[in-house]
Protein backbone atom coordinates (compact mmCIF):
# COMPACT_ATOMS: atom_id res chain seq x y z
CA UNK A 1 0.00 0.00 0.00
CA UNK A 2 1.13 3.51 -0.72
CA UNK A 3 2.06 5.61 2.29
CA UNK A 4 3.34 9.14 2.82
CA UNK A 5 5.44 10.00 5.87
CA UNK A 6 6.28 13.44 7.22
CA UNK A 7 8.53 12.87 10.19
CA UNK A 8 8.70 16.49 11.38
CA UNK A 9 5.46 17.51 13.16
CA UNK A 10 6.77 21.04 13.68
CA UNK A 11 9.65 23.18 12.47
CA UNK A 12 10.81 26.75 12.98
CA UNK A 13 12.81 29.04 10.75
CA UNK A 14 14.10 32.55 11.13
CA UNK A 15 12.72 35.09 8.69
CA UNK A 16 14.88 35.32 5.53
CA UNK A 17 16.52 31.94 6.25
CA UNK A 18 16.08 28.65 4.39
CA UNK A 19 14.20 25.62 5.70
CA UNK A 20 13.67 22.12 4.33
CA UNK A 21 10.62 20.00 5.09
CA UNK A 22 10.97 16.25 4.68
CA UNK A 23 8.65 13.78 3.04
CA UNK A 24 9.12 10.12 2.19
CA UNK A 25 6.70 7.81 0.46
CA UNK A 26 6.32 4.19 -0.38
CA UNK A 27 5.03 2.92 -3.70
CA UNK A 28 5.57 0.20 -6.25
CA UNK A 29 4.41 2.39 -9.14
CA UNK A 30 6.90 3.92 -11.53
CA UNK A 31 4.76 6.79 -12.77
CA UNK A 32 3.10 9.05 -10.24
CA UNK A 33 2.74 12.62 -9.05
CA UNK A 34 3.83 14.26 -5.82
CA UNK A 35 2.51 17.48 -4.34
CA UNK A 36 3.17 19.92 -1.54
CA UNK A 37 0.13 21.78 -0.20
CA UNK A 38 0.10 24.71 2.21
CA UNK A 39 -2.67 25.36 4.73
CA UNK A 40 -2.35 28.75 6.47
CA UNK A 41 -4.14 29.15 9.81
CA UNK A 42 -7.90 29.24 9.27
CA UNK A 43 -7.43 29.55 5.55
CA UNK A 44 -7.85 27.44 2.45
CA UNK A 45 -5.37 24.74 1.48
CA UNK A 46 -3.49 25.67 -1.67
CA UNK A 47 -1.01 23.92 -3.95
CA UNK A 48 2.62 24.95 -3.50
CA UNK A 49 4.42 22.76 -5.99
CA UNK A 50 4.00 19.59 -8.05
CA UNK A 51 6.51 17.01 -9.29
CA UNK A 52 6.00 14.39 -11.99
CA UNK A 53 7.94 11.24 -11.19
CA UNK A 54 9.09 10.74 -14.78
CA UNK A 55 10.81 14.13 -14.74
CA UNK A 56 14.33 14.09 -13.36
CA UNK A 57 14.49 17.84 -13.01
CA UNK A 58 13.38 19.15 -9.64
CA UNK A 59 10.35 21.42 -9.71
CA UNK A 60 10.74 25.07 -8.70
CA UNK A 61 8.18 27.79 -7.99
CA UNK A 62 9.80 31.08 -7.00
CA UNK A 63 11.16 30.60 -3.45
CA UNK A 64 9.89 27.03 -3.26
CA UNK A 65 11.81 24.09 -4.69
CA UNK A 66 11.86 20.35 -4.20
CA UNK A 67 14.59 17.78 -3.88
CA UNK A 68 13.11 14.71 -5.54
CA UNK A 69 15.10 11.52 -5.02
CA UNK A 70 13.13 8.82 -6.82
CA UNK A 71 15.31 5.88 -5.81
CA UNK A 72 15.19 6.93 -2.18
CA UNK A 73 11.47 7.79 -2.43
CA UNK A 74 12.12 11.16 -0.91
CA UNK A 75 10.42 14.44 -1.78
CA UNK A 76 11.56 17.34 0.38
CA UNK A 77 10.42 20.96 0.11
CA UNK A 78 12.92 23.79 0.41
CA UNK A 79 11.69 27.28 1.22
CA UNK A 80 14.25 29.99 0.61
CA UNK A 81 14.18 33.52 2.05
CA UNK A 82 11.38 32.54 4.44
CA UNK A 83 8.66 35.09 5.02
CA UNK A 84 6.12 35.51 7.81
CA UNK A 85 3.42 34.55 5.34
CA UNK A 86 5.00 31.13 4.90
CA UNK A 87 3.84 30.13 8.37
CA UNK A 88 1.38 27.31 7.80
CA UNK A 89 0.79 23.59 7.93
CA UNK A 90 2.46 21.89 4.98
CA UNK A 91 1.19 18.60 3.62
CA UNK A 92 3.00 16.27 1.28
CA UNK A 93 0.70 14.25 -0.99
CA UNK A 94 1.04 11.39 -3.45
CA UNK A 95 -1.38 10.60 -6.24
CA UNK A 96 -2.16 6.91 -6.28
CA UNK A 97 -3.94 4.80 -8.82
CA UNK A 98 -6.74 2.72 -7.41
CA UNK A 99 -7.62 -0.83 -8.50
CA UNK A 100 -10.68 0.60 -10.23
CA UNK A 101 -8.46 2.74 -12.47
CA UNK A 102 -9.42 5.99 -10.80
CA UNK A 103 -7.04 8.03 -8.68
CA UNK A 104 -6.87 9.16 -5.12
CA UNK A 105 -4.50 11.34 -3.16
CA UNK A 106 -2.67 10.15 -0.08
CA UNK A 107 -1.60 12.84 2.37
CA UNK A 108 1.06 12.89 5.03
CA UNK A 109 0.31 14.00 8.58
CA UNK A 110 1.65 17.49 7.99
CA UNK A 111 4.47 19.72 9.24
CA UNK A 112 3.62 22.93 11.04
CA UNK A 113 6.09 25.63 10.04
CA UNK A 114 6.66 28.62 12.30
CA UNK A 115 8.50 31.65 10.96
CA UNK A 116 10.26 33.75 13.56
CA UNK A 117 10.65 37.49 13.06
Amino acid at each position, binding site marked *: AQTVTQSQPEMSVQEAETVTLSCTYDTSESDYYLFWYKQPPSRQMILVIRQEAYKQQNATENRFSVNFQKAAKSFSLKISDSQLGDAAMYFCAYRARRRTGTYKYIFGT*GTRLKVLA
Partner: protein
Amino acid sequence: DVKVTQSSRYLVKRTGEKVFLECVQDMDHENMFWYRQDPGLGLRLIYFSYDVKMKEKGDIPEGYSVSREKKERFSLILESASTNQTSMYLCASSFDGIQPQHFGDGTRLSIL
Protein backbone atom coordinates in the same frame (compact mmCIF):
# COMPACT_ATOMS: atom_id res chain seq x y z
CA ASP B 1 -9.82 30.80 -10.53
CA VAL B 2 -11.49 27.66 -9.33
CA LYS B 3 -13.82 28.20 -6.44
CA VAL B 4 -14.86 25.40 -4.11
CA THR B 5 -17.52 26.52 -1.67
CA GLN B 6 -18.52 24.66 1.46
CA SER B 7 -21.88 25.65 2.86
CA SER B 8 -20.77 26.23 6.47
CA ARG B 9 -17.50 27.17 8.17
CA TYR B 10 -18.74 26.06 11.59
CA LEU B 11 -21.52 23.64 12.47
CA VAL B 12 -22.74 22.27 15.79
CA LYS B 13 -25.05 19.25 15.84
CA ARG B 14 -26.30 16.74 18.37
CA THR B 15 -25.59 13.04 18.62
CA GLY B 16 -27.95 11.00 16.46
CA GLU B 17 -28.84 13.83 14.09
CA LYS B 18 -28.57 13.41 10.33
CA VAL B 19 -26.06 15.97 9.12
CA PHE B 20 -25.54 17.29 5.61
CA LEU B 21 -22.35 19.01 4.47
CA GLU B 22 -22.59 20.64 1.07
CA CYS B 23 -19.86 21.44 -1.41
CA VAL B 24 -20.12 23.24 -4.73
CA GLN B 25 -17.43 23.83 -7.36
CA ASP B 26 -17.69 26.19 -10.30
CA MET B 27 -15.17 24.78 -12.78
CA ASP B 28 -16.91 21.76 -14.24
CA HIS B 29 -14.48 19.39 -12.53
CA GLU B 30 -15.07 15.67 -12.92
CA ASN B 31 -13.62 14.65 -9.57
CA MET B 32 -14.77 15.71 -6.13
CA PHE B 33 -13.52 14.56 -2.76
CA TRP B 34 -14.45 14.65 0.91
CA TYR B 35 -11.66 14.50 3.49
CA ARG B 36 -11.55 14.54 7.22
CA GLN B 37 -8.66 16.40 8.88
CA ASP B 38 -7.61 15.58 12.42
CA PRO B 39 -4.46 16.72 14.29
CA GLY B 40 -1.64 14.23 13.89
CA LEU B 41 -3.55 12.21 11.30
CA GLY B 42 -3.42 14.55 8.32
CA LEU B 43 -6.14 14.30 5.70
CA ARG B 44 -8.02 11.06 5.32
CA LEU B 45 -10.24 10.39 2.35
CA ILE B 46 -13.86 9.59 3.20
CA TYR B 47 -15.40 9.34 -0.28
CA PHE B 48 -14.78 10.62 -3.73
CA SER B 49 -16.81 10.93 -6.89
CA TYR B 50 -15.48 10.81 -10.44
CA ASP B 51 -18.73 11.60 -12.20
CA VAL B 52 -22.37 12.36 -11.52
CA LYS B 53 -23.91 9.59 -9.43
CA MET B 54 -20.58 7.75 -9.39
CA LYS B 55 -18.73 7.35 -6.12
CA GLU B 56 -16.03 5.29 -4.49
CA LYS B 57 -15.26 4.68 -0.86
CA GLY B 58 -12.13 6.19 0.55
CA ASP B 59 -10.16 5.05 3.55
CA ILE B 60 -12.72 5.87 6.29
CA PRO B 61 -16.26 5.65 4.82
CA GLU B 62 -17.95 4.11 7.87
CA GLY B 63 -20.73 6.28 9.22
CA TYR B 64 -20.81 8.47 6.10
CA SER B 65 -22.55 8.50 2.76
CA VAL B 66 -22.40 10.87 -0.20
CA SER B 67 -24.60 12.18 -2.95
CA ARG B 68 -23.72 13.66 -6.31
CA GLU B 69 -26.83 14.39 -8.30
CA LYS B 70 -25.28 17.28 -10.24
CA LYS B 71 -21.73 17.68 -11.44
CA GLU B 72 -21.03 20.80 -9.42
CA ARG B 73 -22.38 19.59 -6.08
CA PHE B 74 -21.08 16.88 -3.78
CA SER B 75 -22.77 16.28 -0.44
CA LEU B 76 -21.44 14.42 2.58
CA ILE B 77 -24.04 12.88 4.87
CA LEU B 78 -23.55 11.72 8.42
CA GLU B 79 -26.41 9.27 8.80
CA SER B 80 -26.48 9.37 12.61
CA ALA B 81 -23.89 11.76 13.97
CA SER B 82 -21.62 10.58 16.75
CA THR B 83 -19.13 12.47 18.90
CA ASN B 84 -16.18 10.76 17.19
CA GLN B 85 -17.19 12.49 13.99
CA THR B 86 -16.27 15.87 15.45
CA SER B 87 -13.62 17.09 13.05
CA MET B 88 -12.66 19.45 10.22
CA TYR B 89 -14.15 18.38 6.91
CA LEU B 90 -12.54 19.47 3.66
CA CYS B 91 -14.06 19.26 0.20
CA ALA B 92 -11.86 19.31 -2.90
CA SER B 93 -12.25 19.03 -6.64
CA SER B 94 -9.96 18.37 -9.58
CA PHE B 95 -10.29 18.27 -13.34
CA ASP B 96 -8.69 14.85 -13.61
CA GLY B 97 -6.26 12.59 -11.77
CA ILE B 98 -3.26 14.60 -12.89
CA GLN B 99 -4.31 18.14 -12.12
CA PRO B 100 -3.97 19.24 -8.51
CA GLN B 101 -6.92 19.44 -6.19
CA HIS B 102 -8.63 22.69 -5.25
CA PHE B 103 -9.93 22.89 -1.72
CA GLY B 104 -12.80 24.60 0.04
CA ASP B 105 -12.36 26.54 3.27
CA GLY B 106 -13.42 23.58 5.38
CA THR B 107 -16.29 22.94 7.79
CA ARG B 108 -15.46 22.55 11.46
CA LEU B 109 -18.14 20.19 12.72
CA SER B 110 -18.80 19.64 16.40
CA ILE B 111 -21.08 16.83 17.52
CA LEU B 112 -22.33 17.27 21.08
